[in-house]
């Protein structure tokens, strides 16, 4: 059992660090996130730099243009990016993390040749069309219909949480091709060009007040059968394949951000008054800061264990779901603690003069994204109980 870098990993980290020290300061300042096209351009610039330096597709196989990094190298990559304050993946998120790996695993040679290069060099943006208003936790209950018409599918329905749909070139789309089959058996995976007629994208404002997501309405949108990935009605399996790409690194960037949040809150607590002294002098507040920090340290250790175990296959369920469940809980407690420390200063979503409160208040709301999205805490508990502990399945 070892936490230190191997010699090869240390070398990888060192080279990466040198490159980041060079490239990050040279980046333009990021645009207003509300300007989605400017953001897309910024993300493309950053991706191109990574591409040129050989870091694009860090976890993709070399045969498909990736770097073929081990999970441990992937972890180091994310850790060093955060350490260097490098931009996050931005609108390349779906293409690099989901659509690309799915095409690698299940796409045809033609599909790969057409799509992988644009994802790697940042010129093509993908969004994800999985969730629907009626199919959240129960994703397989999706109802967007695709009817075969010659060599096209005609797709009608509504998708939600299609992040970056406003600027995307393609959508990885799940549709129902057989409404009579059991719900997992009638789903198909399609590549939807977002320029197709019949698509309407509406911005979806979250409770954080940001239009990070979109709703996508599909009205008789025609998708060539050639755009199907995998067999007709086999789309659920294709979509689930993506899960096997998870190397325990999914939450690394935001976990590292959480550690920064608790550090910043500790700093703030020395400046914000509470009763007669600074909040830091309140033993209860101090202990809760220490507890959250200890829990984030523990989750960081669990991440390393998950990544280690992921080296020889997929991350075990117990580690993945335990992480997600516990992390969501820590984020809620961190948010609640921040609101208590900030008191009235926590009533604004923007920074106050000399007080970096905005990120903490945003963070307290973001906690709900963590406990709801990507398998709610209730779903994670079901998974742990049924698939790890072997308790009887809910019907």
């Amino acid at each position, binding site marked *: 059992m070892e936490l230190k870098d191997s010699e090869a990993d240390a070398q990888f980290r060192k080279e990466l660090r040198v490159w980041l020290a060079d490239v990050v300061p040279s980046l333009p300042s990021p645009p207003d996130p509300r300007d989605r096209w400017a953001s897309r351009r910024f993300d493309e610039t950053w991706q191109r730099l990574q591409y040129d330096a050989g870091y694009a597709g860090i976890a993709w196989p070399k045969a498909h243009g990736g770097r073929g990094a081990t999970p441990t190298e992937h972890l180091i990559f994310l850790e060093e990016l955060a350490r260097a304050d490098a931009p996050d993946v931005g609108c390349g998120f779906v293409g690099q993390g989901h659509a690309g790996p799915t095409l690698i695993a299940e796409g045809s040679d033609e599909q790969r040749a057409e799509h992988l290069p644009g994802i790697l060099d940042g010129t093509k943006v993908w969004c994800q069309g999985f969730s629907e208003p009626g199919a959240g936790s129960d994703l397989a*209950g999706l109802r967007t219909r695709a009817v075969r018409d010659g060599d096209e599918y005609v797709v009608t329905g509504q998708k939600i*949480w299609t992040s970056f749909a406003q600027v995307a070139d393609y959508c990885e789309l799940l549709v129902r091709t057989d409404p009579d089959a059991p719900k997992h058996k009638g789903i198909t995976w399609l590549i939807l060009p977002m320029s197709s007629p019949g698509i309407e994208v509406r911005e979806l404002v*979250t409770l954080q007040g940001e239009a990070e997501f979109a709703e996508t309405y599909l009205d008789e949108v025609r998708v060539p059968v050639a755009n199907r990935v995998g067999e007709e009605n086999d789309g659920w399996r294709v979509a689930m394949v993506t899960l096997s790409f998870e190397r325990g690194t999914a939450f690394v960037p935001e976990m590292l951000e959480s550690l920064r949040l608790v550090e910043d809150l500790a700093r703030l607590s020395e400046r*914000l008054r509470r009763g007669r002294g600074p909040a830091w002098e309140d033993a209860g507040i101090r202990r809760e800061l220490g507890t959250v920090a200890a829990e984030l340290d523990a989750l960081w250790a669990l991440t390393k264990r998950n990544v280690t175990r992921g080296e020889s296959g997929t991350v075990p369920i117990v580690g993945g779901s335990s992480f997600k469940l516990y992390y969501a809980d820590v984020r809620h407690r961190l948010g609640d603690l921040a609101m208590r420390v900030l008191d009235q200063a*926590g009533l*604004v979503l*923007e920074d106050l003069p000399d007080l970096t409160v905005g990120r903490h208040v945003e963070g307290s709301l973001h906690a*709900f994204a963590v406990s*709801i*999205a990507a398998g709610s805490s209730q779903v994670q508990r079901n998974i742990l109980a049924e698939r790890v502990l072997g308790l009887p399945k809910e019907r």
Partner: protein
Amino acid sequence: MHFDLDAGQRELQSALTRFCHDLFPVAVARESGEKGLDRGLWRRLADMGVFALALPDSDGGAGLTVVEQVLAFEVLGAGLVPGPIVGSTLAAGLVEGASTGDVVVAAVTATDGPVLVPGLRDADWLLVLHDDRVELVEAAGIHGDLVSRPLDPTSPLTRLDAIPSGEVLLLGAASDALCRTASLLTSAALLGIARRTTELATDYAKTREQYGRTIGSFQAIKHMLADMLALAEVASASVHAAGVMLADTSAEAERAVAGARVLAGKAALHNAATNVQIHGGMGFTWELDAHLYLKRARLLSVSHGNVDAAAETVATQLRGALQ
């Protein structure tokens, strides 16, 4: 002893509930945050007698007590009624035109740190509650910056460099009583949020289907809802008891008022958060109202006191009672 609502009190709550339902749907709160308080609606609220419940008949009031004020604020809180309702209620009888809704009075408890005043944008006057006195300041003369992104989008917030000084209205016991009333009415509004979010989450759980059944048929959801109900139920006993003790000027009123903030604050924050969670992805959208209850609860929980300070007050009272 008869610790339950009497017929008149029940009627007060149901009349006000109907009124809020008709005139103050949540859209009104949203619009009020963006565009400013609707003075016409504000006068309708005053016409319902909300601000004047505890004024004597001779002053155009209902001659009731803080108990009825508490019951009214429970309903107003549940309805996310916008505007400085606590300030105008406190000001009724102190500031000309407050009880009739002709003037709008915001209120703030003086604290250290950044001064953020809810509702000042739309107010004519500001009541400042100090430790030992209550002051009145004309809103027009106060220099402050409107916050562009307040957490609660239905409550405009003005940032002041310092608490402004004004005319002293009350001192001593009268000032103390007003501060306690401010705290308790805020707790009553929090209680309203705790109750309403329980209802909303229950209704949603009965209709939303996943996995071919309503989510309310899953025991995990049922138990979350049961916890919300129990929290609201126990908080309501606490808030109502504090109202009775405050009306009776009982020696234990300070402990009771602080305890009410602890219970109502916790219940409102927990229930509003759980309501968002039960609404799932939809709860995470701006479009649905779930987040507004959470944000209002955050605002109220730090208005005229906060949960931590209240818990400390109860502890101090507990120790005092032992000596």
